[in-house]
């Protein structure tokens, strides 16, 4: 049928994602361990120097072999996390064979579900290549399409080679052969992420890479966010720092001073994400309402029905009332309440009301992160939209908001997706000039890479069990 629930049903997600991606470039939510950058730089450099076959098939086979072997090495220790191919490796290790032959699982001709990983280019091509290129470790070759190590990538590869001593030679030999003995992989554990010697040259390079010490604009953006994490952790004292703690403490900062650029940017990000979620929650609320009417409701009927549940107040009074009723709630609490399936319209609008209060008189500051362009629907555009109608009756404005900014927006977005991707992502659809429920979709927060940031800081001994380490404190002092 080609029917799919629509992700990003209001086309408000991309701009929010772009916002956080620009704050933490160089890794993603699926890059799992920092030392994998060393590992990939190492074998790519070896391929350049020793194999240098420009055929993509040869390169991909090599990538699959080293990744599969790395997965086998990693699976020996259940505590080692973040290495792709674990299911394959566990299965392989569970066999009785002393020699582990992985040629079939890494062969391009093997069925997808029998490979160590389904993509032919492995995790490297799918995940790490782009991020390592963004980080300046890999570059584009002049004579072929395969990735090659930059001088920075080569330096990291050499440091990794030094760290792993003689294991590297055996590893490459086994990877090229496509088989390894149990005895051999036991000696390769030194290559794994958690075996990084924190005092080694490799660790220094990884720290410098992570903390953006090369000074490029992207690196500086990442550096600013990571320093903010470390400083927030310092301020948190004994409380363990989590992804959630970071995002919400930055969303509603409890400080008297003026925020710096990075803090402001993270606050903008969260305001954008919350606005998006409120709008998606309104769409779901409307859809659930429609489910009671199989033949559908007219747009006017539906919007009036939803808005009729609001008190007879001006929008300003209504939003102020919501905020006063929730004065001791955090934005985090308000958002959690708003996205619950059973949320009533007042609950859904509460985070928006908080954002309005937060940005009152300075909404233009949001233009830094969310430019005013045709088609852009962001916290900047929406808070201004509300402000322009603030003295009108709440029922009228919210009915208009649901009609124009939610339902019609969704119909337009879904129609374009229908043509472009040929997937039917309508959550509400039009039939006989009426709106009809088609499907509901969950309302989810974006994952702004903060989890990965914390893990990577942990990987270089800047963070341990949610707390900043002495090494990181020393680093901060030196900055």
């Amino acid at each position, binding site marked *: 049928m080609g029917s799919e629930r629509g992700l990003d049903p209001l086309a408000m997600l991309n701009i929010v994602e772009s916002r956080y991606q620009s704050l933490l470039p160089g890794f993603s939510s699926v890059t799992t361990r920092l030392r994998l950058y060393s590992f990939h730089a190492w074998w790519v450099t070896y391929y350049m120097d020793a194999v240098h076959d420009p055929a993509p098939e040869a390169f991909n086979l090599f990538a699959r072999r080293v990744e599969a072997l790395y997965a086998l090495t990693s699976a020996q220790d259940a505590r080692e996390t973040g290495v792709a191919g674990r299911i394959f490796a566990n299965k392989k290790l569970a066999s009785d064979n002393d020699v582990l032959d992985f040629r079939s699982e890494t062969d391009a001709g093997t069925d997808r579900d029998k490979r160590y990983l389904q993509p032919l280019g492995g995790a490297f091509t799918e995940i790490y290549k782009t991020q390592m290129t963004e980080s300046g470790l890999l570059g584009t070759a002049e004579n072929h399409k395969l990735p*090659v190590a930059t001088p920075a990538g080569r330096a990291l590869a050499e440091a990794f080679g030094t760290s792993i001593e003689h294991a590297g030679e055996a590893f490459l030999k086994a990877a090229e052969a496509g088989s390894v003995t149990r005895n051999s992989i036991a000696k390769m554990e030194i290559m794994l992420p958690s075996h990084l010697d924190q005092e080694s040259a490799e660790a220094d390079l990884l720290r410098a890479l992570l903390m953006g010490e090369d000074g490029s604009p992207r690196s500086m953006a990442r550096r600013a966010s990571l320093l903010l994490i470390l400083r927030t952790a310092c301020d948190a004292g004994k409380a363990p720092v989590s992804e959630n703690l970071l995002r919400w403490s930055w969303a509603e900062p409890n400080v008297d001073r003026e925020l710096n650029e990075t803090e402001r940017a993270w606050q903008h990000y969260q305001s954008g994400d919350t606005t998006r979620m409120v709008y998606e929650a309104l769409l779901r609320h409307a859809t659930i309402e429609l489910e009671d009417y199989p033949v559908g409701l007219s747009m006017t009927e539906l919007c009036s029905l939803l808005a009729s549940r609001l008190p007879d107040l001006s929008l300003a009074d209504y939003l102020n009332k919501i905020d006063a009723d929730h004065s001791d709630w955090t934005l985090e609490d308000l958002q959690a309440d708003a996205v619950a399936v059973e949320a009533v319209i007042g609950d859904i609008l509460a985070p928006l009301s908080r954002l309005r209060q937060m940005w009152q008189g300075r909404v233009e500051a949001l233009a830094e992160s969310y430019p005013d362009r045709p088609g852009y629907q962001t916290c900047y555009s929406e808070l201004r939209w509300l402000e322009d109608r603030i003295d009108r009756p709440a029922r009228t404005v919210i009915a208009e908001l649901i009609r124009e900014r939610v339902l019609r927006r969704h119909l337009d977005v879904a129609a374009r997706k*229908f043509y472009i991707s040929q997937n039917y992502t309508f959550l509400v659809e039009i039939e006989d000039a009426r709106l009809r429920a088609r499907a509901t979709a969950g309302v989810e927060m974006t994952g702004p890479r903060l989890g990965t940031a914390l893990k990577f800081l942990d990987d270089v001994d800047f963070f341990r069990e949610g707390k900043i380490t002495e090494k990181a404190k020393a680093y901060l002092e030196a900055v």
Partner: protein
Amino acid sequence: MRYDKTFRESGYHTALLTTFSFDPSVFENVLLVALRNHGSRNIAVLADRDMLNNTFGEVKLAGRAGSAYHLAKRKVSGAFHPKIVLQLGDREGRLMIGSANLTGAGLIGNLEAVSTLTVTAEDQRAAPLFAAALEYFVSHTDPKDPAMSRVIARARRQSPWIASLSPKREVEIDGSRIALLFEREDASVGDAMTAFIGEDRISRLIAVSPFWDADLRGLSRLREAMGRPETSIIVDPREQDFDATALSTLGNGVTLHSAALHAGATPRDANTVPRPLHAKIIIACGEAADYVLSGSANVSSAGLFSRAGGAGNAEAGLLRTEPPGTAIERLLLDPCLAVEMPADDLRPRRRQIAIAGEDAPQLTDGGALFFERGELTWIPPTGRPPQGSQIIFQAKGAALDAGREPSFISGAWRVVLGSEIDTPRHAFIRFADGAVSAPVPVSALGRLDYNARTPPGAGPKHILSQIGDLYEVDLEMLNLFLKLQKMRQDNPGRKREGRTSDQDMEDEPKTPGPMSAEDFGLLVEDAGSDGAEFRQGALADVRRIINAKIGIISSFEDEADDDPLSDLIKPEGSGGKPPPSGGGRHRQQAWSSAPQEPGTMEQAAKRVKSLYEHVDRSCEALMKPKIDPLSAVNALGLRLLVMSILRNACLIGDDPSPEHPIPAASRQGEGWIRLIGRLLDRLHFATKGYKKREEQMDEERLEALALLLFAAGTILEAAREATPKVAARLQAINAHLAKTTSSLIADDSIAAAYLERVIAQHDKAYARFSQACSRNEQNAQQT
């Protein structure tokens, strides 16, 4: 094949569609794009008047109606309900008749049934039915509707095979009788079905429908006409129009079933509702055949027993015979029929809700509006006196007009708008009694005619054709070039548009041969550089077009005249042959369209704003590290940008005009001197440390350098006169550019000669600048 995907098939120039329900978003973003991209440009939609008014008033306007396609309203006493898609090509056609409206639900959301017939050049057996379908379509159009008349005339002209046919309502193909049924003055759809079956004894009747009469009288009448056979009713399990009591009045031999058991109704996941039943199918199982009617008619009195001109609906369906005992299985109805639905499960349909203080909108029809040559023509709706009405129209991006009263001139209600107003897109009618109509889309006849032209090809071919059709290098060409480039970036697998027999096809990317470690690891200086690939592809054709327009033609004289591109840029009406005086496709402007009208200052201001934005973006890009400003793609982009600025540049001493709106210099913002100067300044930055490499000095780079040198000289001359303060800086930029160029072409006499020739060609193409310089010099001397 999935119904929505059928609209992505090529081979047709015309699409005539009818519908009851219409979703402008889905039609314009899905079907219209698919149809137009696949060659159908002559498009008309006929929709139920009240439903369309409700949609416009309640849901959304149809933004492209009246421009990219013609949308007409049809009112009958009941509902205008047929769902027909008639597609016509030069020698082939496709007719789809079914239950699916032109909505997302109709295309994929609902459980629908659509029957398809095709004719080809070789097999014309179904063609008489196509002629009947066209005749039926025409019978529901307003003869006073000029846009529809033109669509129909174009369809007939371009499909002579259908124009010469006598319509027939029934044909026989491979032993199967196929009939096109619709409401007629002498017979309803139900009557026609009964007549079609004739004397054959019907043992079982299966009726599938989402909507029914509350007392099931339509079904009852059909059943009586067929001799009261055993009857199975398949309904949408969620809501129905009749209850158990009504069901019991049909007597024995009637069973109830749920459509939810049909394989196509299953929801994709727990968050998705089951596909609502919208298919309308009647199967009469006879001794000689199964008779299967599939179309728009619900199993109701209004659906099955309405006659033309009388009360009730307009409906259409295809009725065909199938081998006896086969239809149920073919339509996958066995699972539904295997399980009976208890009559107690019937639930009355809820049609609308009452909201305190909110009346259901009453939308008044506003008739039809047409725009041509500055004049708005109004066909008033029936039943309302047109006298004293006002037309309140809105052009794209403009505010609503205050309202103008039409006058009855030469047999029609007209408003002369003049040339100062852009084409109105839609309007409201305020009637003398104060009632305001639902929005009425305005059919712009000229635009519809233009948009109905047969396209030369899709994708890059089409864009190239558009580029070739442009009279001169201007913003529009730059935008098309960027579109082409984006298309190329979005389809990385199609980047290598190698010149093969079909330009849209590409060569398989070739893997380079074995190489040394040193060669393997060599990093590119510019990750965006793609010269070799560029020279083979569609973008290279853009360069050839620009060069032809500038008159740089000699380097291509050896190219064959039968290049596919030549056909793409031929204007309509050339008879498929190169123009006799052209002497080849590279003659300057040989096939270009006429120059565009300069338009209004407002339009020019938009153009200028867009050019400024392009310059901003280019300057920003030129500041990026490792950018090669003269890579094949960048060189072409820069050329188009600079040429677009020059095209819009107003000469010193002249006032900005719609044709040349950018002043040389201005206090408020940048003039063209600073605009180009800024670009050259950034270029200065980007080419610092530019090293000579053998392959760098190819023709693309030389052409770009030639233009830049010409532009640098032109703005320096102009700055000395208009903005002496910046002249010193421009002098430095000029010197740097000259120095860089001479170092790049040092010891390369061929490159130097080519550069000189291209500069000279620019001098000729932009002679107005040098003429202005001389004029100003003379003026200065006289003063």
